[in-house]
């Protein structure tokens, strides 16, 4: 397992946003991502849509430094990722306060840490007094907010959201999606929003890239892609979105 290698790539000074050129991810002989290029500006949410096996999660994991890749990644300093499963992404033995301050480094005093934990929790719409709780005491939606807060603690130049609402119940999904949009607006966050659900992507994202078999088949603004799709595959995906009668 090569979880460790982290390619910082390019100029760290660029702050937010990322430019990806010809990204490739291989697992043994299998090419999961086959030459993907895109750009995400500061304060922009790019949706990455595709079906299972399209390579969308591999793109996210590569940018987060969790899988080795080839290609050029400029910017994206301190890239952070929020995962699909809110139950697997928090250490069950760690209090919420300790979890969200994990990325702050060791230079802070105990009080600064506590203050920062409270501030981060409030940023994601949680009460600051949750710091003393354990993950098991929180609902799925709250945990997903904690995972977001933890990622924000590292002041990421790029945030990767990998299917962050697909394990959540419908009634709390909306709140998490609203939060992603709010964070983009208030923090100028660059977000790569990976999802299989075009309706969700349409709601959250500014631009969308449609991924199929490791390649981007269509990329454009949300209105273009969902309103007048250019590629047959995109049309098929849109057709398949279940609709309320």
């Amino acid at each position, binding site marked *: 397992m090569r979880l460790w290698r982290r390619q910082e790539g390019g100029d760290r000074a660029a702050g937010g946003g990322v430019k990806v050129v010809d990204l490739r991810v291989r697992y043994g002989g299998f090419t999961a991502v086959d030459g993907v290029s895109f750009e995400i500006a500061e304060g922009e949410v790019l949706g990455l849509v595709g079906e299972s096996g399209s390579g969308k999660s591999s793109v996210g994991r590569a940018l987060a430094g969790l899988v080795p890749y080839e290609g050029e990644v400029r910017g994206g300093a301190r890239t952070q990722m929020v995962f699909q499963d809110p139950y697997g992404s928090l250490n069950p033995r760690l209090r919420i306060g300790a979890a969200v301050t994990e990325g702050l480094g060791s230079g802070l005093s105990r009080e600064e840490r506590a203050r920062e934990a409270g501030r981060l929790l409030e940023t994601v719409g949680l009460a600051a007094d949750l710091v003393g709780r354990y993950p098991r005491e929180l609902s799925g939606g709250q945990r997903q907010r904690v995972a977001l807060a933890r990622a924000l603690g*590292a002041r990421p130049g790029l945030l990767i959201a990998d299917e962050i609402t697909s394990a959540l119940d419908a009634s709390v999904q909306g709140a998490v999606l*609203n939060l992603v949009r709010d964070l983009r607006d208030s923090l100028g966050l660059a977000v790569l929003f990976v999802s299989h659900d075009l309706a969700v992507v349409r709601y959250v994202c500014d631009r969308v890239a449609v991924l199929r078999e490791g390649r981007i088949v269509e990329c454009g603004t949300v209105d273009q892609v969902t309103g007048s799709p250019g590629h047959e595959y995109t049309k098929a995906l849109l057709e398949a979105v279940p609709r309320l009668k």
Partner: protein
Amino acid sequence: MRRSPAARCGAVLVALTLVLAVLGPWVWGAEAARFDPMHTLEGHSSAHWLGTDDGGRDMLARTLAATRLSVLLAALATALGAVLGVTLGALPSVLGERAARFVTAVVNGMTAIPVLLLAMFAALVAGTGTAGAVVGIGVASAPGLARLTRTLAAGVESADYVAAARMLGTGRVRVLTRHILPNIAEPLILSVTAALGYALLGMATLSLLGLGVQPPDYDWGRLLHDALPRVYVDPEVIAGPALAVAVAGIGFTLVGESLARAAARTPVPPGAGKGAELPLGPASRPGLSSASEAVLEVRDLTVFFGGVTPVRGVSFTVASGEVVGIVGESGSGKSLTALAVGGLVPYPGRVRGDVLLEGKPLGELSRKELGTRLAMVFQDPLSALNPALRVGTQLAETATVHLGMTRREARARAVARLERTGVAAERVSSFPHELSGGMRQRAVIAMGLMGDPRLIVADEPTTALDTTVQRKVLDLLGEVVRDTGAGAVLISHDIAVVSSRCDRVLVMYAGRVVEEVPADRLRKARHPYTRALVASIPDLGTDRSLPLASIPGAQPVPSAVGEGCAFADRCGFADEVCLRETPALVGGVACHHPSGEGAVGASKEGSRDGRGEVAAEGSGG
């Protein structure tokens, strides 16, 4: 917590051993060391129940006095083994890739060496005597613990929170101490407890072989060693130390293993034991048989698990050719309702109420009738198919077992049904893993069609599938219902899926049906929960300039559902009546303040931070 006899027995033996370990040398120490040249090498007598040794010392007193040293040495050896093993097993987590692989390989190689051989080798290297034996047993128990540590650590390392920690720049050692070790500590401690029993046996073995404790010290193994030559003359002289080793060894092993079992057991849900008195099976009440066209009639279905009631008085009917949807969030009881309809509620769940399939109570149907009249489709087609059997063989089984067909007829029918569900005929000899997810689900539906199903129950049949595949599988379900005239229950968390495929929709919340509504009237639903649910799901027409609606709070867990409306604390319309009285399902809605037709759209009120109120505008109705 209730303990098993094995656990209780182990606890008693361990307690006895520990008491003896503390008291033994004080009470019997002097007696055990007293030389008596007049009575050497004697057998059983009233003065010496278990005889005497070559110094005329009492064997019983020596056995009891030896408890402390025996247990102490075993504990030392175990501690050494635990430190060595856990260190070795945790090492790969902090090493580079290549070194980690090397250490893992060494550990795996060492587990292949027989434990006693390793112990003797280590004891010889470390030198004969007490210290040597402790080192030997400690070293010998290390590989097993190292391997366990490695396996557990590898499991935790793949968790998302470890990936998150690495992205945040947390160092390897810190990841180990902060994330990995705390999460594997519990099973490790349990294994160490069990290892104590083995160490006790191991120490006794080494001493018996003369490699362990040397005179004038003595432990049980040493006593055995000294008495062994006399075993055919005075067998009672070895009874004391032999029994002691057995009792203590078995005690520690039993306690360790029952602790491990108790930890592995899923916890009993909170609130268990409240008001449980309903051990009834699906009863048939005379005079209730349905006269209607309903293929399925469910009346007052209630499912209990201990004192928890995840399904509370659910009633609905499904007519021939009708697709009824059940929608709800996780924990709403929708899947248990499906299982109860199939008679599949897992132990120790209990079912009360009536489930009538074509007017006949479920309990009165033979397995054959159930196997051919009812088809179930679950979320994971892989678990519904036997991975070791070819798809065609599995399908044919239904026909040979339940319909009495010959194998040839059954196979022909299997091919026909697979083709009917869009699986190519040549796939009949494929194994399940060779099919894609969508094809597998088609094969499961084909399996349901092997009989002559009057009811198809599909529980999240497309949740694991891609949307394009989902659409085709749902199309297929619709076609099957239309062609066969069977009724269907389609269960999903996705209200859009349910609404697009069903005639009628039941909305479940906290174990109850809170609303029953024609699918095309979902947008005009009357229950605040349904309205909020509909509003919270973005579709391709959602206004992007507005925040999405969401419902504050969370659905109560089954054990926390009490009197009153379960949705009350998340509902903008709730008042005292809602908190006090559980609303009945009247006119398709179970709500004290259902919305009238006029108030449609009111629940579009959003909540930007997830803490706002739902449907803040007038309550209508």
